[in-house]
C-alpha cells in the first residue's frame, strides 16, 4: 500500500482515482475468471433494490398485529423470521430485543459494522462511522438525542454491541392510537432507525394515514 495516495477525508467526495482503481480491480478479477460480471450486477441490484428495511418493517408490523407471532419472534427469532422468508448472510443468528415501558434498546457494532442485512439491508453510513461507534456505548442517550429521541430517565437504555455473529433487531413499541390498523398501515410507522433503536416508531399523529 506504500504507493497509495493519501485519501481526502470527505466521504462524499472520494479521491478522483478511486473509481478508476476499482474499475481496474474489477477488470482484472473478471479477466482471471474470479468474478462473473453478470453475477456482480445481480448482487449489487439485490442489495440496492431488494434486501432492505422493508423486510424488517414487515416483521415488526406482523409482531404488532399478531400476539402469537410476537411471542414466537422473541423466543425463537430465527424460526419466526424464516417463516417470513427473510434469512441469509448476516442474519443467520438473530436476536430480537423488545422495547417496553421499562427498557429502550439500541444496537451498535463498535469494532466494525455488524448489522442484520436480511432485515435492514446494508447499514447506513452513520452506523459505520467513528462518531456513532465511539459514542453509542458510553453516551447512548446523547446519541439518541442527536436523532431527536429523548428516553425518560426512569427507562433503562440497553445497548447491544454486536461483537459476535449474533445479530440484533429492535422491536419498537407499537404506538398508541393504532388499534385496528392493518399490517400495511402499521408498516408505515416502522422506520429503519427505530429498528436500530436510535428512534421510536413514528406516532400516528405525525403520519398522514392515507390508503
Amino acid at each position: 500500500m506504500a504507493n497509495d495516495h493519501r485519501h481526502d477525508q470527505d466521504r462524499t467526495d472520494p479521491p478522483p482515482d478511486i473509481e478508476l482503481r476499482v474499475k481496474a480491480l474489477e477488470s482484472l478479477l473478471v479477466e482471471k475468471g474470479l468474478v462473473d460480471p453478470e453475477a456482480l450486477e445481480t448482487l449489487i441490484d439485490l442489495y440496492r433494490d431488494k434486501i432492505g428495511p422493508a423486510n424488517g418493517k414487515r416483521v415488526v408490523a406482523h409482531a404488532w398485529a399478531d400476539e402469537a407471532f410476537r411471542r414466537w419472534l422473541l423466543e425463537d427469532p430465527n424460526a419466526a423470521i424464516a417463516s417470513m422468508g427473510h434469512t441469509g448472510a448476516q442474519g443467520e443468528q438473530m436476536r430480537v430485543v423488545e422495547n417496553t415501558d421499562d427498557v429502550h434498546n439500541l444496537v451498535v457494532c463498535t469494532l466494525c459494522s455488524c448489522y442484520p442485512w436480511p432485515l435492514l439491508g446494508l447499514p447506513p453510513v452513520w452506523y459505520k462511522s467513528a462518531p456513532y461507534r465511539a459514542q453509542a456505548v458510553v453516551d447512548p442517550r446523547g446519541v439518541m438525542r442527536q436523532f431527536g429521541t429523548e428516553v425518560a430517565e426512569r427507562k433503562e437504555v440497553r445497548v447491544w454491541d454486536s461483537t459476535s455473529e449474533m445479530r440484533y433487531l429492535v422491536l419498537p413499541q407499537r404506538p398508541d392510537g393504532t388499534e385496528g390498523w392493518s399490517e400495511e398501515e402499521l408498516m408505515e410507522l416502522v422506520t429503519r432507525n427505530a429498528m436500530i433503536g436510535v428512534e421510536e416508531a413514528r406516532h400516528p399523529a405525525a403520519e398522514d394515514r392515507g390508503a
Partner: protein
Amino acid sequence: MSGVHDLGGMRGFGPVRHEPETEEPVFHEKWEGRVFGIVELIGLLGQWSIDKSRYSREQLPPADYLANSYYEKWYAGIRNLLVESGLVTAEELQTGRTSTLVPEQILEKVAHVEQVRAAPFKPSNYVRPASSTPRFSPGDRVRAINRYPDGHTRVPAYVRGHTGTVREHYGSQVYPDLSAQGVDEGRHLYNVRFEGRDLWGKSANVNSAVHVDLWETYLEPAP
C-alpha cells in the same frame, strides 16, 4: 488487536452525521456498490473467513483507517487478501494484467447469476462442536480478562478488566482469534451484561447498560 478500529467509548469524534433515512441511498457512489459486490463474490470462494476479512481492514495504517471511507477500507482490505491468498499476484494488481492462472478447483467455486439469485443469499453456519462443557451459566458474575493481543480479537477494550453478568449462553461458535489465523475451532459464546456505571464510572448515562457477546476465553470468574 487493540487497534484504532476498537472505537467504543472514545471521545472527540464529533456528532453523528446522519442523513434523513428516506433520502439515503444504499450506495453513494457507483464504485461503492462494485467494491461491495466484489468482496462478497470473492468471499464465496471460501479462501478466508469473515474474521480474516475483518482483520485485514483492522491492519490498515491507523491514519488511513480513520480517514478513509468505509468502502475505501473494503477496497484496501480485499487487495491485501487477494495477494496474501495467492488468488492474485502483487504484479497483477500493479499492472492490471493477468500473468498467472487460477487453479481449476477455485474457478469451480465462482458464483454465477443463478447462485446469486437463489435466495437466501449466502447464509453461513458459525456453530461449531464444543470441546468442553460451558464454564459459565446465566447469572454468573464474570470479568473480562485484561489482555492486549497483537492479533485479531473481538473483546472490545472498554470491557477489559470490568465485571458483568452472564445473560445468555449462545452455544459454541467459531472463535475469531483463531479463525483470523485460518484455524476453525469453536468456543463457548456468551452474552454478558455490564452496568453503565461499572464501565464508565461517573461519566455513565443514568440507567444504562451495555450487552456484549464474549467468548469464554475472554472471561474469568469475577473475583
